[in-house]
């Protein structure tokens, strides 16, 4: 061990002394990635997820290639299934946009589910009880405003506590989801229950005046979603408020030093984030479902978090991610008839896709450094 010579004898003879060597592998943070690499990494992640999914499908005794082809044709193959797929993508996209604003300022809003419910309930109130008092397009507009305000206020509650007492927002927003859900269940089983539903605990369908019109066979929620993509993109990139959000997200200290009112940014951004989730509630009840029920969100508030994150909070990328998840969801439905594979396989493939995408981010942020040969002693 010739290395000892270079080191102090006292240190080397100490019983706790261990020869330290450079680790075999270590990682270094990188500032910029060469062009094309992000795409390569993401495509590899997608292939990895599909391969792993293929193994699971094989284990169930089906041909994975046929299953994948069937998933594509069942979600994109004809105009009618394509419309269905878009209908699934709309709420994911809108909610993802709202979540992205909160996440950009490192405010972990896990409460979109509750904010969607708040918006949906507020819109439903007007749809169910104000029809006839308001002329045709006015009812839809009032419903929209109600959903925006309700979703926004519901989203603001945890922000108030965060601003005042620094209450943990991840857990607070999570709990508010269930409080909103129980509130909706109360309405469905109690005062809003349709007396003409033969005892079934359902809320009556909305009148035609409270339904969103359709364009190309899909309710106009898709236009609202695309408009929001543009608006949120401009808000985040071009406006002063959007800039404040990024500064708060980078460092609260810096923001305070720069004279930004951090508490105001929390409240304002969470109002907008919740309001956008409220719009999801609006387009779901007034567009897709035509009524409201305890399952009307379909877990979108949670799935949309993954949409926002995988898109790196980029509104345009969210279009792609939400459509992809919608393809998985729609495409896996009919598998049970053609291959005997239960539709819950969608959850597994979606989960695998998320795992691989989340893992692959690492290769965009870090570089692996292997120990050099000379570093090896003995």
């Amino acid at each position: 061990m010739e290395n000892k010579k270079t080191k102090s004898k006292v240190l080397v003879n100490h019983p706790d002394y261990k020869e330290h060597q450079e680790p075999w592998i270590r990682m270094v943070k990188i500032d910029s990635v060469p062009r094309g690499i992000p795409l390569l990494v993401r495509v590899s992640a997608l292939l990895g997820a599909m391969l792993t999914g293929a193994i699971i499908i094989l284990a169930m005794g089906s041909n994975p290639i046929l299953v994948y082809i069937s998933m594509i044709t069942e979600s994109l193959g004809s105009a009618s299934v394509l419309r269905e797929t878009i209908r699934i993508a709309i709420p994911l996209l809108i909610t993802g946009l709202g979540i992205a604003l909160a996440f950009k300022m490192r405010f972990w809003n896990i409460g979109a589910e509750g904010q969607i419910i708040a918006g949906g309930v507020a819109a439903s109130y007007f749809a169910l009880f104000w029809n006839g008092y308001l002329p045709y397009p006015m009812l839809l507009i009032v419903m929209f405003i109600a959903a925006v305000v309700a979703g926004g206020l519901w989203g603001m509650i945890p922000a108030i506590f965060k601003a005042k007492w620094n209450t943990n927002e991840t857990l607070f927003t999570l709990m508010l989801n269930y409080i909103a859900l129980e509130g909706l269940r109360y309405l469905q089983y109690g005062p809003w229950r349709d007396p003409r539903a033969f005892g079934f605990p359902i809320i009556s369908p909305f009148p035609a005046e409270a339904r969103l019109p359709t364009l190309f066979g899909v309710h106009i929620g898709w236009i609202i979603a695309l408009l929001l993509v543009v608006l949120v993109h401009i808000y985040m990139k071009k406006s002063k408020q959007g800039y404040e959000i990024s500064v708060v997200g980078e460092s609260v200290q810096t923001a305070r030093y720069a004279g930004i009112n951090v508490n105001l940014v929390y409240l304002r951004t969470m109002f907008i984030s919740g309001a956008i989730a409220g719009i999801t509630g609006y387009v779901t009840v007034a567009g897709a479902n035509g009524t409201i029920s305890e399952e009307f969100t379909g877990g979108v508030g949670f799935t949309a978090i993954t949409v926002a994150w995988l898109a790196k909070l980029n509104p345009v990328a969210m279009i792609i991610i939400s459509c992809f998840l919608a393809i998985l969801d729609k495409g896996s439905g009919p598998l049970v008839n053609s291959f005997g594979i239960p539709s819950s396989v969608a959850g597994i493939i979606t989960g695998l896709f998320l795992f691989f995408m989340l893992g692959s981010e690492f290769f965009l942020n870090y570089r692996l450094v292997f120990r050099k040969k000379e570093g090896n002693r003995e």
Partner: protein
Amino acid sequence: MDIDILTNFFFMAVIAATPLLFGTLGEILTQKSGSINLGVEGMMFMGASIGLSASYFYEFYAGDGTIGYIALGLAVIFGFLAGALGGFIYSVLTVTFRANQNVTGLALTIFGIGVGNLIGDLLSTHAHGFTSSTEATRRVVANVGIPFLRDIPILGRMLFSYNMMVYFAIIMALLLMWFLNKTRVGLNLRAVGESPSTADAVGINVTKYKYLAASIGGGICGLGGMVISMVDNSGTWVFNCVAGRGWIAVALVIFAAWKPSRAIFGAILFGGLSVLRLYFPLDGVPAQVYDIVPYAATIFALVLTSIRKSKESAQPKACGTNYFREER
């Protein structure tokens, strides 16, 4: 009020508390290492379906020679391993690949619910309808209680007449309490959860601790799911059987202020609330009011902790952030 109703209510509260307690303990262990794993629901689904399949296939091949203890034992082992697999996937992504903890937990929930319902559906298909434990297993799983002690009036019913998973859960809570507060390794683990860089500086292997805590914690969550499918549903797969209890467990972690001892009482309280309306329906009070209480109480606890700035009962500090040594 009839004392029998009260003891019965307490009994049912404890039964309802057991899966919650497992989920909570698993998540406490995970969060103590500085990882917030929101995938409890998913890991419980994995434990529920894979634990059940282990017992089902053992019974399928053993036929009349089924030994109930082996069936339950296999369910325990595989339920644990399934949950641990979930926790391990979470660790790979958050510890090694440094993915966002919240998002990874949600992905694990989506994945776990898919795995649970898929395996459950396939099992039901294999059993031509629905799965069900054999008589031998049911005898072991059903109320065995502690001989002699269970015959004491009232107290016997309230304390000594449960199935063994209930006692297992309580022993697990006491063990975890002892581990976190009295052992060197437990102290190290808490150091990792509070300040990984300090722990690293004194030579604690942060990566190893985080992996083990999340994986074993996931395994304990998996046991909670296994209790739902094997004990509560006597070996029958019910679609979506975990039904949000993983999320209640996440709430309980906050309510119990990350303390296993408080988790026991919290779980019985939350379990009690979930069966309360069956025993004490109040006129004019809708069911949802009962259901809302656990979440409202959790928010109350959360806000109170933050107002008092209590470090004792706050979330471990490193929760939510991933540790990268070169970024101190």
